[in-house]
């Protein structure tokens, strides 16, 4: 039972990651390889709030989201106008720089030693979320809220413009909507909401270090989203469930840990390759990336 609940928490963390990334990738066709950087920054900002500033749960989360949104804006302002590949390079650069700084600026982040003993968040100042059961519920609630917000967003007039942008930017421009501004907004919203996964991860594992937020993790998040599918709500959820459960399935094969990890990656790669050919919109998506 504990094992199942652990998986539920992990799935929820990835649902938040893929659902937020979906707004960026699935609605505005911006492929980002910097998602793990924002995931990591979010986790470190949460540590800043909980450990350094001793803030309660909600202010910590809001502060972290705000800070992450700020960093998102910082990256989006110069790079959002870049064409396809170049935007990917810019986010990739950001990912590597962020990782290197998190890893090497030891006096600020404790670098490779990581931050241990992250306290459990207290709800309303009293109810401490510590046990696995509470965590399971908290993560379910947060993931559900994120899905709800994104559902509403996509169906709002804002979402309608985004749908227009992913299909035909020129047309949206000629209808008088500032496409660049929309893309920046989407990027910043995505960064803000990714913080929630960072929050869940940091407080659940109670220890973070930079090696959880590498370029490989970025690729992993992107793969999860693309395997699940982009452009609707189902896709990211399917993707998150898939990537979290696949290793567990492989575990039953009884392979040594080292080989199992590689085999997992090979299977992800193979899935992506096959999907891109037969079903570029992903398993449950309804819109293919352009």
């Amino acid at each position, binding site marked *: 039972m504990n094992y199942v609940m652990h998986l539920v928490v992990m799935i929820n963390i990835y649902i938040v990651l893929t659902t937020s990334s979906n707004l960026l990738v699935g609605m505005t066709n911006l492929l980002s390889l910097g998602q793990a950087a924002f995931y990591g920054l979010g986790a470190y900002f949460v540590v800043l709030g909980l450990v350094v500033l001793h803030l309660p749960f909600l202010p910590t989360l809001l502060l972290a989201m705000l800070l992450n949104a700020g960093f998102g804006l910082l990256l989006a302002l110069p790079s959002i106008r870049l064409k396809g590949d170049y935007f990917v390079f810019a986010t990739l650069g950001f990912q590597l720089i962020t990782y290197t700084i998190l890893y090497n600026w030891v006096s600020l982040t404790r670098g490779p030693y990581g931050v241990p003993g992250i306290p459990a968040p207290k709800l309303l100042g009293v109810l401490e979320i510590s046990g696995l059961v509470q965590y399971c519920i908290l993560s379910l609630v947060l993931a559900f809220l994120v899905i709800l917000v994104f559902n509403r*967003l996509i169906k*709002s007039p804002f979402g309608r413009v985004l*749908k227009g942008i992913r*299909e035909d930017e020129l047309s949206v421009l*000629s*209808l008088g*909507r*500032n496409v660049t501004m929309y893309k920046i907004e989407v990027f910043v919203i995505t960064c803000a909401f990714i913080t929630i996964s960072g929050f869940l991860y940091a407080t659940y594992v109670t220890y973070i270090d930079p090696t959880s937020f590498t370029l490989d993790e970025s690729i992993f998040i992107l793969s999860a989203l693309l395997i699940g599918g982009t452009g609707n709500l189902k896709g990211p959820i399917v993707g998150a469930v898939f990537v979290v459960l696949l290793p567990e399935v492989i575990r039953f094969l009884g392979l040594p840990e080292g080989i199992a990890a590689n085999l997992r990656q090979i299977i992800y790669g193979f899935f992506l390759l096959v999907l891109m050919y037969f079903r570029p919109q992903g398993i449950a998506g309804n819109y293919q990336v352009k």
Partner: protein
Amino acid sequence: MMNEDILQIQDLSKAYSRQVVNIDGVETNERYNIIFDLDLDIPQNTITALIGGNGAGKTTLFNIISGITEADSGSIMYCTKNQNSWISLLNQPPHRMKKIGIGRLFQDNHIFLQMSVLENMMIADSNEWGEMPFVSLFNRKKNREIEQFRMKKAKDTFELLFGRDNPFWQKRDDLASTLSYGQQRLLGLARLLMGKYRLVLLDEPTSGVNPMLANTICSVIKKMVDEEGITVFLIEHNMKIVEEIADYCSFMSHGKITAFGYPRDVIGDETVRKTYLGM
């Protein structure tokens, strides 16, 4: 008597440099004037046609007016709503054009095929309320009202243009890709009436549609001018249509306007007939 002008273009030039690789693999840069010292005035509340051969620079001219392409030199002045104030259109970003009342229909159907017919209309609404993120989530009542209003506006527009029992309103929830090519074109035109435009640029509105639909399109264009007070500037290859609906006609050749006047006169002009119509 000529109407007041809405658009005055003076000495407009645009050149592209293109790389040419010859048979020996030697690359040279060639400058190519697509528009050269072009002058043109568009009178208000009329239909002005722009005719000319392929590659004469017609679409480039449209792109410059709507801010998609930057001009090298010259000026484009646009008369705003209060009649005496003129603003320059050069170096304005394309999304600003809607705010000052300039709309555009592209040559190929730039409608949103993966969105419903109704969504295609609603996204074009002049009222942009709720298009900032989260705004509509915090004020859901207002959002509902405005969305209702947009829907009604779309319905009214369809009825104004295509009559009471039009296929567009009936198919409002179907994807725009299910419409026929001609209908998609009409949807593109109808969409322009959702915004508060004063000048619309139509790039070959009747190309690729059958004569029946072409007639409908002509009547829609006339309604735009007569009932909505819009000024229409259109590129058209069908001379019959030009003679039928246009008030003025301009002939473009090698990046310049070489003839301007009443359609009958321009089309009857000897050089135009020789160089363009081949008669």
